[in-house]
C-alpha cells in the first residue's frame, strides 16, 4: 500500500520535523521505515505464493525526547494531514502499528525516563516509553514492584500496556494495568496536552483515563503516567492441583474467589495443555500466593481445602514453582522445534494466535469446549489456559497453531480462523478480547463488541477529537 504523500510533500514534512525536533530524532532511512512497518500479519495475509508481500511502509520515524516533541510532531501531521502511528514495544502485533497509509511512526520508547518514585505515597511516575522490565528492575532495587508482570514484560512498555489494556500474570490479585494507573499525560490529536489527576480515586465526572486506555493510539499519544506500587512481597507460596477436567478446575477457582481468597496468580490448563506441556491427565491448576508469610499460608490452606473438596490431586509446589521460575517466559523464545517457529512444510506458512476472551465462569467452560471442535475443523491445534480471574469469571487464552497453504487462498483461510473464534466468543456472551487488544485483526468485529450504537458514538468521539483522522487511521474499526 502506498503512502498518501507525494515526494514533494515528504520533503516538506521531513524538513519541518527536523526543524522542530532536530536531525537525530527523525529518520527517513529505508531500513528504519521498513523495520518499523513490520508485523506478522503481513505474511499471514499475503496472497502471493512465495509469501513476498510488501508491507505498508511509514514515511518517517521519530524518536521524541519530551512531550513537547510529540506536540510538535502532531501539529506538523495535522497541518499536512499525515497519519501518526504511536508505537511502544511493538509486541501487540495484530497489525496495530502498521502504517496503512504511510505517515509518521512515533517510537515512544525514546521517552524512557523514570520521573519520580514516591515511596511515601506508593506511586511511580514514568514516561510512556519505559519498558516494563526496566521499570520493574529499577523498582525491585528499591524494594518495590508494580505487580504488572505480563509475559511480554521484556518487550512491551507503558504506552502500549495502557493503550491495549494489558494484563500481567498477577492480575487476579493486583488487577490489570487499568486498575494500576492513577493519572496520565496525553498529547491529543490537535496537539494539546491533557492531564488526568494522579489521585487514588474520584467522582468528578467521567474517568478520562478510560478514554485513552484501549484506544490503541487512535485518540492521542500517551506520554507519561503515574501508577500504584507495592512493596516486594515478603513471601511467595506455590501450590499445584490436578483436577479431573477443565470444568472442575474452573469451578474450584469460582469457589476460591467466592470465599474471598485472593491468589496473586492462578492458572489452569485445559486437558490438552495439561497433557502436552505438563504430562498429566486432567486439568492442572497452579497457584501463587504472595504477601507476608501468615497471609500466604492461610490463603493456601483455604484454597487447598476447596481443591480437596473437589477431589483434586495435590501436586505440591513443584509444577507451580517451575512455571514461575522457568516456564513463564520460555514458551515465547523461538527454537527450531517450537511448534510456532519451526520451519513450515514447503509451500505452507506457520500461523499462530490467541483468541483470548473473557466472560463468566459458565462462559469459560462453554467456549473452551466449543472452540476446540471449531478449530479442529480448520486443522488448527488449539490449547487453552485461563490465567486472569475475577469475582464473576475470568479469561480464557486459546492459542491456535497450524500451517496454512501459501497463495491466493491464504488471507481468507487465516481470516476464517479469527472469524469463527470471535463469533463464538461473542455468541456465548464473552468479550471479543481480554488483553491483547484489537489492532487490525479484530477491527471488523468491534461493532459486535460495542453494538451499532456504541460504535457510532465511538466514531463521533473520534471525529470530534481527531477531525483530520491522523491518529492511527484504520484501526479499531474506526
Amino acid at each position, binding site marked *: 500500500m502506498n503512502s498518501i504523500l507525494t515526494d514533494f510533500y515528504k520533503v516538506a514534512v521531513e524538513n519541518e520535523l527536523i526543524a522542530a525536533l532536530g536531525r537525530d530524532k527523525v529518520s527517513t*532511512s529505508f531500513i528504519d521505515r521498513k523495520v518499523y512497518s513490520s508485523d506478522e500479519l503481513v505474511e499471514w495475509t499475503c496472497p502471493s505464493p512465495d509469501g513476498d508481500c510488501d508491507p505498508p511502509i511509514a514515511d518517517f520515524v521519530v524518536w521524541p525526547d519530551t512531550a513537547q516533541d510529540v506536540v510538535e510532531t502532531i501539529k506538523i501531521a495535522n497541518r499536512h494531514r499525515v497519519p501518526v502511528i504511536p508505537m511502544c514495544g511493538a509486541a501487540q502485533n495484530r497489525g496495530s502499528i502498521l502504517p496503512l497509509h504511510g505517515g509518521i511512526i512515533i517510537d515512544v520508547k525514546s521517552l524512557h525516563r523514570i520521573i519520580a518514585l514516591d515511596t511515601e505515597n506508593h506511586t511511580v511516575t514514568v514516561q510512556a516509553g519505559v519498558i516494563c522490565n*526496566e521499570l520493574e528492575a529499577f523498582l525491585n532495587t528499591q524494594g518495590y514492584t508494580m505487580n504488572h508482570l505480563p509475559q511480554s514484560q521484556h518487550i512491551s512498555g507503558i504506552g502500549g500496556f495502557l493503550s491495549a489494556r494489558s494484563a500481567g500474570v498477577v492480575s487476579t490479585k493486583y488487577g490489570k494495568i487499568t486498575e494500576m494507573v492513577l493519572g496520565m499525560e496525553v498529547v491529543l490529536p490537535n496537539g494539546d496536552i491533557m492531564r488526568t489527576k494522579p489521585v487514588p480515586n474520584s467522582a468528578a465526572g467521567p474517568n478520562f483515563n478510560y478514554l485513552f486506555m484501549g484506544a490503541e493510539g487512535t485518540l492521542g499519544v500517551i506520554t507519561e503516567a503515574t501508577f500504584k506500587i507495592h512493596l516486594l512481597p515478603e513471601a511467595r507460596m506455590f501450590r499445584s492441583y490436578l483436577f479431573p477436567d477443565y470444568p472442575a478446575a474452573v469451578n474450584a477457582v469460582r469457589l476460591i474467589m467466592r470465599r474471598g481468597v485472593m491468589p496473586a496468580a492462578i492458572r489452569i490448563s485445559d486437558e490438552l495443555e495439561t497433557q502436552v506441556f505438563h504430562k498429566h491427565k486432567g486439568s492442572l491448576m497452579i497457584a501463587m500466593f504472595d504477601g507476608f508469610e501468615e497471609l500466604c499460608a492461610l490463603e493456601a490452606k483455604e484454597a487447598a481445602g476447596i481443591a480437596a473438596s473437589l477431589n483434586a490431586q495435590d501436586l505440591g509446589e513443584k509444577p507451580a514453582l517451575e512455571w514461575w521460575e522457568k516456564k513463564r517466559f520460555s514458551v515465547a523464545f523461538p527454537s527450531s522445534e517450537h511448534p510456532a517457529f519451526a520451519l513450515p512444510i514447503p509451500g505452507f506458512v506457520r500461523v499462530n494466535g490467541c483468541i483470548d476472551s473473557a466472560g463468566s465462569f459458565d462462559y469459560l467452560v462453554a467456549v473452551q469446549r466449543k472452540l476446540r471442535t471449531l478449530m479442529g475443523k480448520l486443522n488448527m491445534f488449539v490449547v487453552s489456559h485461563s490465567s486472569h480471574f475475577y469475582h464473576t469469571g475470568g479469561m480464557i487464552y486459546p492459542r491456535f497453531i497450524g500451517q496454512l497453504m501459501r497463495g491466493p487462498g491464504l488471507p481468507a483461510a487465516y481470516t476464517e480462523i479469527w472469524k469463527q473464534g470471535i463469533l463464538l466468543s461473542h455468541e456465548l456472551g464473552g468479550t471479543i478480547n481480554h488483553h491483547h487488544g484489537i489492532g487490525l485483526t479484530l477491527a471488523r468485529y468491534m461493532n459486535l463488541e460495542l453494538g451499532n450504537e456504541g460504535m457510532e458514538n465511538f466514531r463521533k468521539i473520534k471525529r470530534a477529537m481527531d477531525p483530520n483522522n491522523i491518529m492511527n487511521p484504520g484501526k479499531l474499526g474506526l
Partner: protein
Amino acid sequence: MIDIKENSRLCSVCPNMCRDFCSVAGATRHEADSPKHKGAFVKEVIDEKNSLDAAMVDYFYRCAMCKACREACETDLDTSELVLSARTGVKGDLIPSKLGAVRENIVSGNMYADELSDLKSLLKPHLAKGKAHTLLYFGRKLRCEGLAAITGILSLLDKLNAEYSVMETEPDTGQLAYFLGFAEDARALAETCNREIEALHPQTLVVFSADDLRMIKKEFTGPGLSQTIPVIQSVPEFLLELINKMKPAFKDTTEKVSYHDSCALGRELRVFEAPRELIRNVPGVTLVEMAFNRDQAPCCGYGMGLDITHPEIKAKMAARLRIMAMQTGATTLVTGCPVCSIVLNAAAVTDMSDQNSGGIEIIDIAQFLERRLIV
C-alpha cells in the same frame, strides 16, 4: 559452529525477547538496533532478498559484541555471532571508510593516540628484564588514555608490597581487530602478542583491560597463552588474592557503592564475585546493585570498537548506565575494568542530558581500593 542460516531465521521471527537487554537498542531505543532485526538483516542477505549495501553494513557495526542478548535468550541464540560473521564477510568497498582507517591503525600499531608520555617514568622501575614472574599487562587503550588507572594500580600494588613487572612496550592482543571482523589481522597480532609475552616466561599474567583478557582467554582459538602460562587473571581476582594474603587496613567510611559488571569480566569470564568481595571488604561500604547487573549488565559504550565507529551511540550507552547507577543512590560506581570508567567518565562531558548532571564518582576497582587503603 553455529548454524547462521537457522539462527538468523529464528531471530527474525522472534517477538524481540532480548531487546530490553541489548546494550545498543536499550540505549538508542531504535528498533533496527535490536538483536531480532540484526538477525533479520542477516537472513535477508542469506536469502538474497536484500544485498549488502552501506546502510545495512552500518547496522552490523552498531553492536557492542556484549552478548547480553545471548544471556537473555532462553534458546541460547547468539546474535553477536551472526553480526561477527557478517562483519568478517564485509569486503572491499563495503568496509566503511572510517573502519578502513581504524584497521590500518590497528595493524600498524597506531591505534589510539600516542602512548602517554608520563607513562615511561611511571613504569620504569618495574620493567621486565628478561624474565617476569608476575607480569602486569595493561592493554593499548589504557596505555594511551588510562594514566590515572595505571597510576592507581601501581600505587596500590606498591603499598601492598606486591612483586610484579610490566613491559616497556606492549604487543596488541588483537581484540579490536577480532571484534571488528578483521579475523586474519587479529590472528597475526595475537600470535605476535603471545610470542612476546611467552618470551618473559611469566607464571602469572594479570590483565588490566577486561577485553584483552577476554581475547586471550576466550576468543583466541589457537594454542595460546592459556597453554603456557599457569595463571592468567583479571585484576579483581589478583587483588582479592593479594588482599586476602596481606590483610591491609582500609579507612572506615559510610558510603553507598555500586558496581558495574563489564561484559568481558562478567558475562564472558564469569568474574562476578571477586570485585564485589573487594568492595565489601572496605568497612562501612554498602554495596547496592544496579537494576541490570551481572549477566544482564549493559555494555558501558566501549563496545569492542563501537566507541570509535559510533561515538554517538557510545555516549547514549554510557549516559544510560550512569543514570542506572545514579538511581541506586550510590555516590561511587566501581568498575572491574578501567576502560569502562574511562568511557563512563567521558560521557559526563559529552552527554548534556538533564539526568546526567554528575553526582556519582566512577572509578576502577584498583583506584577505589588505593584511595581507601590506610598505608
